[in-house]
């Protein structure tokens, strides 16, 4: 049976943490003396209250977290965070309607970065920071963060980790999960700090630098300007963003090994990393060609814009420095492909993941080879480790569910009257946690506020599923999950 008491207790503890983050925003708001002080204060209070109630409900819970509990816990935690996180937007009147506010927060937490706010610059600093902070917390995972901070509070933390981690392969860096979590969060902090510092040096204001750094290393994509990084129109800032997006799309475990243990060679030899880099280079080259041919960019601008857009899409960040809607439509197909594959497993990026891409391509190649050599036993090897057949089936099943989900969202949006190209890219964008959409009606630089309310709810669910790699959420809706066996 599901251990609801324990789930309530853990949820309560996690909400305390959320309240803590909100308090940071409240302090910022107090410094700036803006209109968001009251909404933020109320949110902190409400969250603390809910946390306390849940914590009291969960008192005396048996500390045994089962596999099902873990799946349910992770899903509930993400929904609860989004729900409480949307209060400041609603109360302050910055976003109208529960659907929109929830969508915005979920988009933040899942590091999607799609926004329904038409005019970001008009918002007060506290709320803006909260918006960026949701992405930063969601980047490596809410529960995973807690494992690093509060090591001993969950008995079955391994199961929770498995339910929330991104990608098919989980590599532990240290014998103990807490140590791994600390190492990965260490990498994350260093990256964010370095990124913020560089932005600051290249002329951003302190507040903007911190916000952009957080949303870029989380591969989220929320910006504090309507024009995103295009607002600065500064090559140094663009290239800094490109580098940090690129790095954040690499497995943090690999980054840790590469930078703290000097195993850079191993990183360069990693099949997933190579696939990821090759995809970026190839897509950039093609897009540069089209920009030079049809849009008459100068070579330097073409390279900068193409690289920025490709890296932004493949790492599922969704920042922009140019309006890709003006580009040749073939570039949209390439960017969609990047959206689909996403970054490396174990990074903050979303999408299908390059590791899965490598494996899926190898399965495909093997099937072709099998026509010629029917008796051959062809392994799927990634970095010298063999993916066994059950792993391959899981992956194909994941791919199928991913595609079906996208089609479902596509179907619903067409029904709701959204433009066809937009429907397709929005579905992909949400499932991969990218953010922008490509199409005729809504451009990549525009907000999604025009979408119908129903669609926003469905997209919120889709983003959550995309972030938790579908099965974690999907399993809760199966009858078998709730049966007592």
């Amino acid at each position, binding site marked *: 049976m599901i251990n609801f008491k324990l789930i309530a207790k853990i949820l309560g503890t996690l909400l305390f943490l959320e309240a803590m983050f909100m308090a940071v925003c409240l302090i910022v708001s107090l410094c700036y003396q803006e209109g968001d002080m009251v909404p933020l204060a109320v949110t902190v209070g409400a969250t603390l209250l809910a946390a306390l109630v849940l914590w009291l409900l969960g008192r005396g819970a048996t500390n045994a977290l089962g596999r099902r509990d873990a799946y349910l816990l992770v899903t509930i935690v993400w929904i609860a965070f989004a729900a409480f996180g949307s209060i400041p937007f609603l109360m302050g009147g910055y976003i109208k309607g529960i659907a929109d506010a929830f969508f915005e927060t979920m988009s933040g937490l899942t590091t999607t970065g799609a926004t329904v706010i038409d005019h970001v610059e008009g918002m007060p600093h506290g709320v803006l920071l909260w918006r960026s902070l949701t992405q930063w917390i969601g980047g490596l995972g809410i529960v995973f963060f807690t494992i690093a901070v509060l090591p001993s509070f969950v008995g079955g933390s391994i199961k929770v980790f498995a339910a929330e981690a991104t990608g098919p392969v989980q590599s532990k860096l240290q014998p103990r999960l807490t140590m791994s979590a600390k190492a990965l969060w260490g990498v994350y902090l260093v990256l964010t700090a370095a990124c913020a510092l560089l932005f600051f040096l290249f002329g951003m204001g302190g507040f903007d630098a911190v916000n952009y750094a957080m949303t870029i290393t989380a591969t989220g994509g929320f910006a504090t300007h309507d024009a995103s990084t295009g607002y600065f129109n500064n090559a140094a800032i663009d290239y800094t963003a490109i580098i940090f997006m690129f790095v954040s799309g690499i497995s943090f475990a690999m980054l840790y090994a590469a930078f703290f243990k000097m195993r850079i060679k191993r990183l360069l030899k990693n099949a997933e990393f190579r696939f990821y880099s090759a995809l970026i280079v190839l897509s950039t080259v093609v897009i540069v060609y089209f920009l030079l041919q049809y849009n008459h960019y100068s070579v330097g601008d073409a390279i900068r814009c193409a690289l920025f857009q490709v890296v932004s899409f493949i790492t599922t960040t969704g920042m922009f420095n140019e309006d890709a809607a003006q580009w040749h439509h073939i570039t949209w197909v390439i960017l969609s492909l990047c959206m689909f594959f996403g970054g490396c497993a174990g990074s903050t990026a979303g999408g299908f993941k390059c590791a899965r891409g490598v494996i899926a391509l190898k399965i495909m190649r093997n099937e072709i080879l099998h026509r010629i050599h029917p008796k051959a036993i062809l*392994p799927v090897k990634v970095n010298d480790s063999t993916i066994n057949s059950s792993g391959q089936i899981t992956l194909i099943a994941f791919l199928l569910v991913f595609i079906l989900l996208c089609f479902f969202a596509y179907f619903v949006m067409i029904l709701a009257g959204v433009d066809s190209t937009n429907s397709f890219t929005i579905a992909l964008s949400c499932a991969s946690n990218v953010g922008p959409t490509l199409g005729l009606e809504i451009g990549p630089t525009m907000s999604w506020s025009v979408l119908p309310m129903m669609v926003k709810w469905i997209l919120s669910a889709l983003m959550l599923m995309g972030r938790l790699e579908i099965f974690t959420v999907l399993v809760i809706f199966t009858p078998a999950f709730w049966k007592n066996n």
Partner: protein
Amino acid sequence: MKVIIVGADAIGAHLAELFSKIKQNIIIIDEDESKLERIAAYCDLLTIKSSANTPIKSFRDAGVNTADLFISVMRDENLNLSLCVLARSMGAKQTVARVENAEFTDVHITNAFKRAGISSIIYPDDLAAQEIIAGLELSWVRQRWNVHGGALTMLGIKLREECEILNRPLKNVCQPGCPYHVVAIKRGNSTIIPTGNDMMLSQDYVYFMTTRDYVPEMRRVTGKEHYPDVKNVIIVGGGKTAVRVVNNLPRGMKAKIFETSTARCEELNAVIDTSRVMVINADGRSVANLLEENVRSTQALLALTGNSEANILTCMTAQELGVSKTVAMVENMDYMNIAGNSDIGTVINKQALTASYIYQMLLNGDVRNIRNLLMVNADIAEFNAHKGSRITSKRVYELNLPKSVELGGLVRGGVGILINGSTQIQPGDNVVVFCQDTNISQIEKYFI
């Protein structure tokens, strides 16, 4: 010199035979009395029956403290390693352990083993693989042995009708300045150390000594130019030797391994480079399966299953299907003879290879490199000529060397030089000596 051998299986037995032939004090330890009796029947040595689990007493009985060489060649590698450490700590001068794990042959690991008291590590499958790979690189040669990194090379070649130098006395064929030197001829079951009047005939198996630059010339002279270079290799049987072969496969070659066990196929895939090697889950003895995997465009077939007879038959089948280079792995020493006379190509015996490799350790110091050629029952060794030794005193034809001894060539300052009667050997030369049925230590006297 006192040698203690633990383990009287094929390797141990073969070693005992090699060592007893050169009149060394050999003690062989095993727990199986019947194996010991079998060896004692044809070798002059002392046998001790003892279990490897209670080694101390048998070690004391054997006098391990005065042993010059302690060799542990049982099937269990862990036992071999621990016995070597023990023997070393009890006073054995040199220890050799047989292992079954490629990881242990890494240089860093062998150095660590040296510090622990194990002088040498022998991995039979690795030795077999090295032999096979040398053969694949020179597909038209059946056996090849390099001296000083290839400055001099000995080639074992089966002569056919196409050979240019048949049916003529050697004194007419090999004028002074000739780029090769005929070291030995195996005809039927007899071995001839040739003189100027002997002739090479078709079907002879001949050992040539030549220098690096003349290897292509040898290929032309012996009529082997139509032999294709190896590009594709089929391996039947996915054992450890197969793994060592494909993991050291020369550049530009691709391989397919036929293995009947599905579980083993999965294991193989985990340890090999799958971009060059494909594992086929089928019986490689079946012609249909071979044809399906395009055996006709394959230049080499290695039969490496655990069944000697099947390996030989597979090689014969492959030869009929047009595979020019075939290698059969056999366990049985008797088959080595058949191989030279028939069309099954190269025959590899892991145990004999291992034994002959260990054999050279006994002859350390002045013997640089030695190889036992089972097929002609002969040794080929590389000696260093010392200053003032007999071999440097006169020209070769004046030395009055025993008839069964043949000087093949020498390496002077890194350059290979062939030897004829008028050659004067100088101190510091490395001389390659071929000797049949002779005690190597007798020849050693000439060089000290």
